[in-house]
């Protein structure tokens, strides 16, 4: 397992794939499981991610993407895949 704590802030234009990988890593980290066990199509809450953690993760996302992220984004896009796709699409016109 790789550590994501010391990752440099990214990324010029993150693709959905990049974001998906980052999210899987964060989740795997939070849940202390291997990254391979995170399925991008399974809802966050079925992994036992509670609401304060979800809100905290949205803050980490802000740091990483260096753009504003709604604190409740993980409710609106409740899987890794859906969230990554949304963020990738959103980041395009702003660059």
């Amino acid at each position, binding site marked *: 397992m790789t550590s994501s704590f010391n990752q440099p802030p990214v990324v010029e234009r993150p693709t959905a794939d990049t974001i998906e990988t980052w999210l899987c890593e964060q989740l795997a980290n939070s849940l202390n499981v291997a990254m391979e066990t995170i399925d991008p199509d399974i809802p966050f809450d079925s992994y036992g991610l*509670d609401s304060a953690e979800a*809100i905290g993760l949205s*803050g980490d996302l802000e740091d990483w993407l260096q753009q*504003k992220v709604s604190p409740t984004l993980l409710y609106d896009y409740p899987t890794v895949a859906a969230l990554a796709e949304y963020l990738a699409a959103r980041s395009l016109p702003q660059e």
Partner: protein
Amino acid sequence: MPPLTFNRPQGVSSGLTWIDLLSERATQQPSRIAFQIWNDGTVSSAPLTYGELDCRSRAIAARMQRLNLKGERVLLLCPPGLDYIVAFCACLYAGAIAVPIYPPRPNQSLERFQGISDDAQSALILLASAQQFKPETLAGLPTFSLDAVKSEEAADWQPPGISPEEIAFLQYTSGSTSAPKGVQISHGNLIHNVAAISHKFGLSNQSEGVCWLPPYHDMGLIGGILTSLYQGATTTLMSPVDFLQRPVRWLQAISHTQATISGGPNFAYERCVEKIKPEQCAGLDLSRWSVAFTGAEPIRMATLERFANRFAEYGFRSEAFYPCYGMAESTLMITGGDHTRAPKQLTVDEENLAAHRIQSADQGRVLVGCGQVIESGELEIINPQTCRRCQPNEVGEIWVTSPSIAQGYWQQPQLTQDTFQAYLADTGTGPFLRTGDLGCVQEGELYVTGRLKEVMIINGRNHYASDVEATVAASHPAFGSMWGAAFTVDQNDQIQLVIVQEVGRVWLRKLEPEPVLRAIRQTVSRVHGLRVETIVLVKPGSLPKTSSGKIQRSRCCSQFLAEQLRPIPVPARQL
């Protein structure tokens, strides 16, 4: 400006309602900003003045009056913000009983929400807008949205003719292990308590507040919002999730608005110390912050010290810390200290504390003083078994009486009698509210030591769960400010101590269980003389908490017994 009629707490029990108060504020200072929103690093351009709050509240109340809702319960489903406050005041203007409740989200468990909604037997739901999410189970209830009401309708409003004894709102308590309990707060209770808080905090109408606390809990609603209205002051609101996402926003709002008053539970200060990075603090000025209240959960001196040290260079003064004690059953505040002084602390001997005695010591448990009872109140330390006063150096249950004590629990006469109508066995003095909290009074200062029901009796000695938890938290850096639960289970006719402890995220990966488990066992044994039978290490966020962030020990215990806790995987031999 001449002194306001309401400014003296002793003048407030003389037959005033919240309607009288808000109307007077609106007349005196219609264009003064009552609330504004902090968003995106700036104050939003659409504040709510005292005049607008009064006018919008009357308009909505007028509609409610056409529906004959006097005395009926109205669920407030608006998201935290200006609409929430308007909806609350509108209910009171209509003579209806407001029921603050957290707005449910799609995909969320609605169990607790539904429990409250059923218990209150609501007649109406107020939403901010028709687009807002409303659970299907409420489909049968009439609803209306605030944005559909026009200000002109304010002219139709009639004073509802209510007296201060009538119920203004139901505050559902967060103790969610049992069925929901709606605390009945009268207009008189509300006015008395906000007056008392203002007096204790030393507020004036020049005070500036910042509040991110949820308006559906007593600390946010009473301490953050209604106290500000009582004073005719200005408060800047931010959403609770904005704080949770990025705690520095709280301090930025305080700095930007030069706020004098703001606060939260212990964990809020802890979060700031933990999460805020130095580079985020550039330009912070916390020098005008004079009341940093802390309450609603055990106050840890170590947290206050860490916060004060960390933010001293941005002007924060440790005298600003204002530890206080209260609960929904007393509207909010029961005790608070002198707002110009630094918090008092008392170090007591652990051995004696376990035997319910207070003996000051050089080393031991550090208790934080919560001041003195509010104006017109009386506080007694009572032996919960004999219902007689404790000796001065004894710990007992905190009993209290004051005009802020609520009118009991909604439709629960037995529970109301047990909790609100306690009398001293020997003198018959009463009635008192039984707080269920343990504490002692030393040199006129209240020190809260734990919850009555969370005393663990092991080998005939009393141990506070919160005390053992603090010991565990301090036993290893991996536990820093993580949550832990200590409780006993009865196995093989033996009372056994179980510790469930969250491990800090950065430690998960490198955790070597053996030294960690040894640290817990050794420290608990050394400090409390107790053997820890079982230790379960879990990930951050795994422990069950109430919606206000208190550990639910009994739920944690049942999860443990049902083997529903998910331990961090470690080799079995090491456990």
